[in-house]
């Protein structure tokens, strides 16, 4: 990551979701992914705003699918991590692991 800001919490979750979805995620699936795993409701607007920020930082980029073969079908905006983004995610997670003294502490913190 070099010098610069740290990843925000939500940014981390979005990037993690994108990674999980194997670079085929888009708005709906990313949102659902975070919502299911966090058991908190997630606003689609927050997802898009975060994706926009991540793109500006160079951690993700977009590709657009062809319009779906149904009436009124629209193309989707798919997200994938860039190499920089993958590195940032790896660093953030390993940093987290280093900061937390003991993963079993997590269970106690609950």
């Amino acid at each position, binding site marked *: 990551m070099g010098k610069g800001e740290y990843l925000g919490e939500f940014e981390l979750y979005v990037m993690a979701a994108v990674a999980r979805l194997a670079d085929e995620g*888009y708005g*709906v699936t990313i949102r659902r992914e975070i919502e299911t795993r966090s058991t908190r*409701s997630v*606003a*689609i607007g927050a997802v*898009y705003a975060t994706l926009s*920020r991540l793109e500006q930082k160079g951690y993700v980029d977009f590709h657009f699918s062809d319009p779906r073969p149904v009436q009124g079908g629209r193309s989707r905006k798919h997200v994938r991590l860039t190499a920089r983004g993958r590195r940032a995610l790896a660093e953030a997670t390993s940093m987290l692991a280093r900061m937390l003294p003991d993963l079993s502490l997590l269970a106690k913190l609950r």
Partner: protein
Amino acid sequence: MTRTAPPRFAAWLLRAVTPSEDRAFVFSDLHEEFETYASSHGVTWARRWYVRQVLTSIVPLVAARFDPPRVTQFAQHVRHSLGAVRAAPGASAAAITTLALGIGANTAVFSVVDAVLLRPLPYTQPERLVSVWQVRSGQRTVVAPGDYAEYAAAPHVFEALGAYMPATRALSAGDAAEELPGDVVTVNLFPMLGVQPALGRTFTPEDARPGAAATVIVSSALWHSRFASDASIIGRSVSLNGEPQIVIGVMPADFVPPSGFASADAPTFFLPAPEVSTVASRADRTLHLIGRLAPGVTLAQAAEVLNRIDATLATHYAANRDTRAALASLDRDITRGVRVSLIVILACVGLVVLIASVNVANLLIVQAMGHRHEFAIRLALGAARSDIIFEYAVRGLVLATAGATSGIAVGIWTRDLLIAAAPASIPRLNDLTLNPRVLGATALITVATGLMAGAIPALQLLSDSRRGDLNVTAKSSASSPRARRWQGALVAAEVAAAVIIALGAGLLVRSVIQLNRIDVGFETERVLTMRLRPPQGNVDPAARLLFFQHVSERIARIPGVQSVAFANDFPLRGGWKGKLQVLGRGEPVDAAAEFQAVSDSYFATLSVPLLRGRFFDATDQGDSPPVIVVSQTFADQLLRGQEPIGAIVRRNPAAPALRIVGVVGEIRRNGKFAEAAPQVFFPATQTRTYAVGLEALAVRVVRGDPRTWLPAIRQVIAEEDAQQTLSRVRALDELLKASVASWRFNMLLLTSFAGLALMLAIVGVHGVVAHAAAQRTREIGIRTALGASRSSIIASIVGSALRWAAAGVCVGLVGAYLLARGMAAMLFNTAPTDALTYGMVTGLMLIASLCASYLPARRAAAADPVHALRNP
């Protein structure tokens, strides 16, 4: 049947807040899930989910719109700007000081403009209040009671029409009495203005009925100074002009009566005017009218109705011929004397800020030039142009904000100076605060200044880059022609602005010089004048004469007193006018002149020179043949060709014949702005020849401030007659100075701005030329090595600077002409196209530009050519 579509309002809201590039995707995603939930959880649940999604998405989407990267960038830029300021402390201090002066001056002037022109009057719904007066034979006059009653009775014009009349009364306290200023007001005036006394009650219609108890309301100031703020004053009786009045109210401390805006002597008491009917006098023009327009009535409509009434009155009464009512909104009327000058001053101070911003812009250009190669690299690597403009805009804003914070302090101090120095003719200069309007204006100017100062260098850099003038392999100090053109244009702009202000100042200086040249015809130095009034009513003229003669003799014996005179009144204070007939060869000629009844020593006291014949002397007593003295103007205008001494004049065919025994120098009785009208002087001893009372005394002292003799004078008068009230004590030179005070003030203000502008412009030109010359060291080195003389190099540098300055002067002269036209009302005996002033300003600016460019040119030309060639 529930709709199977997402709620329309939520959809609209979402559309409004989502950035356009993502709109389609956000919508389709949300819709996709909506349909999934609709089939799994039911449409109602899905709709509620949809709304929840939209609501929780608003904040993140809107925040993203404002581009948080921009916010962090902003903070970064601010940090960098502060670093740049620290790195170049001298230049930055200069820039910030320049901005502080400009913004501070602006804040001060705007405070005054706000207080005088923008602030609403301290009454209820002041925008509906109007001032009503009459125009008679082209002159503005106040209104007679009969006409007032007619206007007040006009249907559907005024909600209420009130009137006031300034009056003086002697307030007795023990043995002494003091004359105080006050107003007689109609009982509806205070309710109409929406003001209430702080203590007691306001006037009611009962107070105006004939036979009602005599009541008075006092001002807060009088209550404090004379009645020790004693609350039991309500119901007490005080003696005004010897008559008891019951105090029924005390006005609040912040109350300003309409008569109090422009006068230095605020009214201290208010008496109720008796009821006025339409049979009242139409000839005694004494009333100032203030009305509140009825709802929905415009000024034009009201004027129309009143003028129709005027037309009717004119056919019935001779006094109303050629008389028309006129109206204006009250606050415009109160400020009509100073509106133009304040706006001109505001415009000029705006130009000063402009010059300050240009100086800062030039400074930033110089700094940017040093970073040219860095910019080239950034642009080549894909930095957005808007980023660079943004960065420089922030840098400009930082400097401007620093300038503004110190500028506000400068502004408050300058404003207080302004108010202290301001002539009494500027109304409403009390109780100034830094209100939101002023702060808002300051903030606006700061932002505009900062953006301009920052954007110009950025735009110049970017336009350079577009034309590929930026040299990526840097270190080359060859300046781009475009950069020089920008700087040259900025110099021209500065010079133009300075020319405009300087010309305005120059015209005012000339006006004041013209004013000073005017000789009023009498001495004003070391003369103290005062009004002496008998306690009540009329006194026998013979007794009055005797009183004044005794008092004069005794005062003349006081050490240090050079001369004493008495009269009905003195120049600069008042007098009376009248008609007369000149008898000579052929038919009597009708004429008009200014009259006064004066003691023998009048002419000596006021140093009015005797041109022919003699002054009054002991041979002119009450029973001697009636004589008069006239001024030279009288002889020139009214006695054409006739020998003045011995000529006969009379007031009217029935009056005694008056023989002229002397001619004195011309007098401008009403001061510098008045004409030298024909003057007629009656000897005070011949009381039968004049109809006014002797009321004024003038004492001329040998040296120093005549006021120091006041206690001695008071004592003599008190010993002679303790009941006399002494009032309106004024030194004549005070009165004369006060009459020209506003001209002096405007001149001082504008010359200060011109000085500031000139200074800033010189600094600007100097800086630009120095920088441009530094950029051309290589070229200069080559030329020197090839044998060019130092003076030719200096000439070329100075020459190019002068070309820009000359362009600025040309543009400036056009702008100056427009300003001069707008300023015409502020000028005295000076044309807006006064060639001398234009010539001098042009010369001044060119010389200043010459000097400002000569020094850096000389320094650059003196550079060692070997050194220059080696280190380009």
